[in-house]
């Protein structure tokens, strides 16, 4: 694999990254050349971003079709296989939807800065690299690329103390997690030398090879635990979830939507690859992962029940969704269920992205004139004012609750089957029971939005429709339903899941 071939294989990431740079400097350059910063920047930045994302997505699709085998780029630091390309596509989807949402949100909040789009693109680059990383150090750098952009996005509402507070909390805990991750990597580097004279390595495929042919060392396992903690923070799994509600509540809604999806998708892509590598030593960690899964599901769901703030509720629900996804992590230990677990996790990640983007997107849609629509009270009776938004919200809530015929159901069902195939019936039953609890609070949102009377008389809605946010929500909704009824991607994802074992 020469360098130019590696670069070629990495082209989707490069396209997104270069677009990010262009978007970043476009605005200052405009202020120099045309002495006008405000007017065209929104169009320039967002359309540039969308073009970049679209190009990258096209290229990724082309690669999926073109590459019959895994590409190990840059001396095996990155692996471009169907799995990473599929995750990249999910990430690009969420980025595109987030760009659409941001176009309206930022304008409503008088915050029309091109950096936001650049940050979206940079964090997407980080996420895509996380999915492709075949080396723990690359994973670390990618993780930080993702996180740093997200920290800034969380604090993007500079005049809001809540936004800044969210950014601070996210940043401190994220940096803490990064410390764990890096130290774990160091320990793995030391622990991967199973015998004297064998050098240390951080390459995941090398570690996998060594684990298949030798005993795991203590240092390796300790490092694995620390890396797990680090990634668990990013994925908001339960003992490491404290930041999630505060951050999602405080951050600008469009940023909450984006970070809820991207961070989780990327973290789970990394977790899947990492734990698959560690699967030969699963006796050490399977118990912990199971406990984390069950705790995440139940703690997330139970805490979500009492929330009045929808963003906060969605945050807790995202913890629960992380718990559902963790069952797939537990399931990859069984050789017979690996393929099913990977494809289930991939499908669920796509589902999660679409429905969370949609749910937050409806909040963005309803946030007009700088007022954030956040609480159940804000949502009361919006069906009379904004029937489309209310019904779309209902679709997303039902999908989040895993109720057919939506994508959420199919995803949950696939996870469920994978868990059973892996011989973990306890987890499967916990999954079912947790989604039962979840139904309650999702229904509360529908109740507030569709069933309750609004507090004040519905004002005549003469404002122009937030076009782009509407487009974003509608895309999410259509796919949530369509893929819930005809899950055509599953087969592709199965191939993607299997690509890991080639």
């Amino acid at each position, binding site marked *: 694999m020469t360098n130019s071939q590696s670069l070629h294989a990495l082209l989707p990431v490069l396209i997104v990254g270069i677009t990010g740079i262009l978007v970043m400097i476009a605005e200052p350059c405009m202020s120099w050349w045309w002495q006008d910063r405000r007017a065209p920047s929104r169009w320039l930045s967002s359309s540039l971003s969308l073009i970049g994302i679209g190009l990258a997505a096209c290229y990724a699709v082309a690669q999926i079709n073109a590459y019959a085998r895994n590409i190990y780029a840059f001396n095996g630091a990155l692996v471009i296989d169907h799995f990473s390309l599929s995750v990249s596509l999910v990430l690009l989807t969420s980025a595109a939807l987030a760009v659409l949402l941001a176009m309206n949100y930022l304008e409503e909040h008088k915050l029309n800065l091109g950096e936001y789009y650049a940050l979206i693109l940079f964090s997407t680059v980080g996420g895509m690299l996380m999915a492709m990383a075949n080396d723990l150090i690359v994973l670390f750098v990618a993780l930080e690329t993702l996180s740093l952009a997200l*920290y*800034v996005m969380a604090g993007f509402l500079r*005049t809001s103390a809540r936004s800044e507070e969210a950014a*601070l909390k996210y*940043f*401190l805990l994220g940096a803490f997690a990064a*410390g764990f991750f890096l130290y774990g990597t*160091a320990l793995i*580097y030391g622990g991967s030398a199973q015998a004297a004279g064998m050098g240390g390595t*951080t390459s995941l495929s090398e570690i996998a090879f060594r684990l298949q042919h030798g005993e795991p060392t203590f240092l390796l396992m300790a490092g694995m635990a620390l890396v797990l903690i680090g990634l668990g923070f990013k994925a908001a799994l339960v003992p490491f979830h404290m930041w999630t509600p505060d951050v999602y509540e405080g951050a600008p809604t469009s940023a909450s939507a984006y970070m809820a999806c991207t961070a989780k998708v990327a973290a789970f892509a990394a977790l899947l690859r990492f734990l698959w590598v560690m699967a030969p030593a699963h006796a050490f960690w399977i118990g912990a992962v199971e406990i984390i899964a069950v705790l995440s599901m139940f703690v997330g769901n139970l805490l979500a029940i009492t929330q009045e703030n929808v963003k906060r509720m969605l945050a807790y629900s995202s913890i629960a969704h992380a718990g559902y996804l963790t069952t797939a992590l537990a399931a990859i230990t069984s050789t017979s269920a690996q393929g099913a677990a990977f494809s289930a996790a991939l499908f669920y990640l796509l589902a999660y992205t679409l429905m969370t983007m949609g749910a937050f997107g409806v909040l963005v849609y309803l946030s007009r004139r700088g007022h954030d629509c956040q609480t159940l009270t804000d949502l009361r009776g919006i069906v009379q004012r904004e029937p489309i938004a209310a019904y779309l919200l209902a679709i997303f809530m039902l999908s989040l609750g895993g109720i057919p015929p939506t994508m959420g159901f199919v995803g949950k069902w696939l996870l469920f089957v994978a868990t059973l195939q892996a011989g973990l019936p306890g987890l499967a039953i916990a999954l079912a029971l947790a989604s039962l609890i979840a139904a309650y609070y999702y229904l509360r949102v529908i109740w507030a939005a569709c069933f309750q009377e609004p507090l004040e008389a519905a004002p005549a809605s003469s404002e122009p429709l937030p076009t782009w946010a509407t487009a974003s929500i509608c895309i999410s909704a259509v796919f949530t339903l369509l893929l819930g009824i005809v899950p055509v991607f599953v087969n592709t994802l199965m191939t993607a899941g299997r690509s890991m074992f080639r």
Partner: protein
Amino acid sequence: MVPTSYYLVLSALLFIIGTAGVLVRRNPIQIFMCVELMLNAANIAFVALGRHFGQINGQMYAIFSLAVAAAEVSVGLGIIVAIFRLRETINIDEVNLLKQ
């Protein structure tokens, strides 16, 4: 020659101190410094292990993590400054608009 295990013990101690500091401290800057301590503990471990194995990788990784830490510093200080300008305090206990 100092045995590698000494370095590892040192790095573990630093890491534990950093972790404890993050959990105990109330000033974000102090917390942040503790996080840097954790990262540097990892760097020490990397360099020591790289030397132990006779590989250049360890030192290379340390430089990577330095770069990342620098980026983190920039972002972190920016956030802390922003919150101080809004709230006139950066004490974690007083920064509690978002209910726990």
